[in-house]
């Protein structure tokens, strides 16, 4: 085992390398590009006996990934944001093929307006595709999750592709010390891909990706995917336990921090949850019994574990780094349905924060904690809120002012010039 400073992107590439992938279809996009470039360099240097092909778009890349996995080889690919969305048609399709492989998504906010930094609307748009989803908060977790994701995706009771998600910039370009397990250790945890029925074999031709006519067979196949995803909860327990035995690192479906006697809790996804860890510690210092729950698995959705870890908690602040227009936070809606009808369920408050990489400051966590405590006391949750300061609003207004003045100037001088 070696310990090295790796970026989140570097860790993702190491995950693929250790998984001994056979095939890497690729297409560049910021902030993911480093991953495929690193793999390309290793393949070129003869350090990774895989084949890589750069295609003309993410749509083709995902198609090639699914098709290659369906022939029975181990496939890795990576994308981000617009790329994931462009491939969306194929996400549904290849998941329906039941071809397991791993797709790393480096989250980046979606256009329009075009931007580069992170939020989760991209990956959550893939929520219902049939891909499993593992969300990471540290670079170590990125490497480990790629390995976990292969085991989970290839599990005989699951057989679905998996997305490993990391946040653009905050993780993709941040260096952290990462333990790189020995290849032999990984090999024991993750043997070569056993494609079982999903494969091309000489003299045994089968037709894949067939069409069905009518709702009956269609419902059957779609529901099978749902069942397989549900079974991935138990499969993950098994896989995570094996991983712990192999490496000493435990990755549960839910990551919790100081939840034992927590009165209020934050629920968040991804690397921004590390900001909540710090806020929770400070709140504890000032006597507030706060805690944090971070779902690592989003699909399958760890409903039972969530109910269990939030039992006894009085108020939960759900911080969504995404926005479902006209509804609010996606995580909030998921959690609300999970807790609905549970006796003594906590009151949920909803906050939208970190859109397009916007920071969430410690004071904002304190504020959310106080709003949530109050909601717990009164039993009344306020309307969902966007984390946005008066200072930020002034800044936007200032920019709008400049734009308005420029437009006025252009129109004005144009009119002057056109006077006969």
């Amino acid at each position, binding site marked *: 085992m070696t310990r090295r400073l790796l970026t989140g992107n570097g860790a993702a590439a190491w995950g693929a390398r250790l998984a001994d992938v056979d095939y890497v279809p*690729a*297409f*560049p*996009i*910021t902030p993911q*590009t480093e991953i*495929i*470039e690193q793999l*390309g*360099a290793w393949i*070129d240097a003869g350090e990774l006996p895989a084949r*890589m092909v*750069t295609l*003309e*778009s*993410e749509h083709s890349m995902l198609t090639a990934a699914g098709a290659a996995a369906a022939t029975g080889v181990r496939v890795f690919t990576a994308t981000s944001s*617009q790329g994931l969305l*462009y491939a969306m048609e194929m996400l549904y399709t290849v998941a329906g093929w039941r071809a397991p492989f791993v797709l790393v998504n480096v989250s980046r906010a979606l*256009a*329009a307006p*075009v931007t580069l930094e992170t939020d989760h609307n991209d990956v959550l748009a893939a929520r219902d595709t049939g891909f499993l989803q593992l969300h990471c908060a540290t670079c170590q977790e990125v490497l480990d999750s790629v390995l976990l994701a292969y085991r989970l995706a290839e599990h005989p009771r699951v057989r679905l592709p998996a997305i490993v998600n990391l946040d653009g910039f905050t993780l993709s370009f941040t260096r952290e010390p990462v333990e790189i397990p020995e290849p032999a250790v990984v090999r024991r945890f993750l043997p070569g891909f056993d494609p079982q029925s999903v494969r091309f074999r000489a003299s045994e031709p089968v037709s894949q990706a067939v069409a069905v006519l009518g709702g009956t067979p269609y419902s059957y196949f779609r529901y099978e995917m749902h069942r397989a995803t549900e079974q991935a909860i138990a499969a993950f327990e098994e896989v995570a336990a094996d991983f712990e035995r192999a490496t000493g690192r435990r990755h549960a479906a839910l990551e919790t921090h100081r939840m034992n006697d927590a009165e209020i809790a934050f629920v968040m996804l991804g690397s921004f949850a590390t900001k909540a860890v710090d806020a929770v510690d400070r709140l504890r210092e000032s006597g507030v019994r706060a805690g944090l729950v971070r779902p690592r698995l989003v699909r399958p959705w760890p409903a039972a574990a969530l109910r269990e870890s939030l039992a006894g908690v009085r108020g939960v602040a759900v911080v969504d780094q995404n926005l479902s227009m006209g509804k609010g936070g996606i995580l909030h809606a998921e959690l609300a349905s999970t807790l609905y009808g549970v006796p003594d369920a906590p009151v949920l408050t909803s906050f939208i924060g970190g859109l397009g990489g916007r920071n969430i400051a410690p004071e904002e966590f304190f504020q959310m904690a106080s709003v949530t405590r109050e909601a717990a006391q009164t039993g009344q949750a306020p309307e969902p809120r966007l984390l946005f300061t008066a200072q930020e609003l002034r800044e936007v207004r200032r920019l709008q002012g400049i734009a308005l003045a420029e437009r006025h100037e*252009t129109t004005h001088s*144009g009119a002057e*010039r*056109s006077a*006969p």
Partner: protein
Amino acid sequence: MSEQLRSFFGCGLDDDRTFDLNDYGDSIPRWCVGCGDHGVLSAVKRMMRDQRLLPERTVFVSGIGCSSRFPHYLDTYGFHGIHGRALPIATGVKLSRPDLDVFVVTGDGDCCSIGAGHWLHATRYNIDMTVLLLDNAIYGLTKNQTSPTTPEGFETNTQPHGTYLPALNPLSTALGVTNASFVAQTADWVPAHLLATLKAAYEHVGFSFVRILQRCPKFSAPVFSEQARTPDLHELLFHSDGITVPSLDKIYKHRLEHDPSDLDRARSLAEDTERTRLGIFFKDATRPCYNAIRHLPTYTAAQNIERLNRELDRYAV
């Protein structure tokens, strides 16, 4: 848009405004020093000034890439799209507002890779617009990956031991599409030719496709550096119906008369890449334009009332 069309739409002609280059935008672009995009931008502004384009009747549409930053640096209407989708955006704009002059600025990745499907169909629709393909033979914005036009053997971050496949030829591709109506090539390092080509492309009614060889000193410098220094590696196509730039004759010795109505010859000239050929390869203004054959006739209010009455009369008892 031609003068004829302008008068049809009743725009521009009655407007005797003149413009200087800064009227089309005076912000400082954020491209690298020495990037060919700077030269293309100034040629575009000069063309607009010379043709007296009205900023408020001009639209620049782009996708994503270094080259696609273009609309930010122009005080016209702008549409910074998403990667690969410049052409359908421009199609939507032009079909709903045929009175506007529509320009598309796209890159070799944007047009020939992720957006290639649109390229083929936009060429066939032959909608009246001017398309500038800024071909630097690399994905520039994402920092140095092989694009479809990267020369075989050229080392990039995705193909470090050299690009595997022969480069796609955008000219042959465009010339191969049914209903193509204008295909030209020019280079950022021959400003006079660039300007003349932009004018010809703008004046052509139909889908004017101009491949502009564009230097990217940051990532693909070797691709064009020798060419840019050596006029003898070029061959200028000239014709009374094509582009003639007499001021270049002294420097660019190799010249070839080529009638742009000759599609077969255009194809063979495009296919042979021994020399860098600059000029109009093909031009045919008689090819059907989607916007013209499908455009809705405009009626006066009186005509509309009359049409309405006629329609109502059909139901009269």
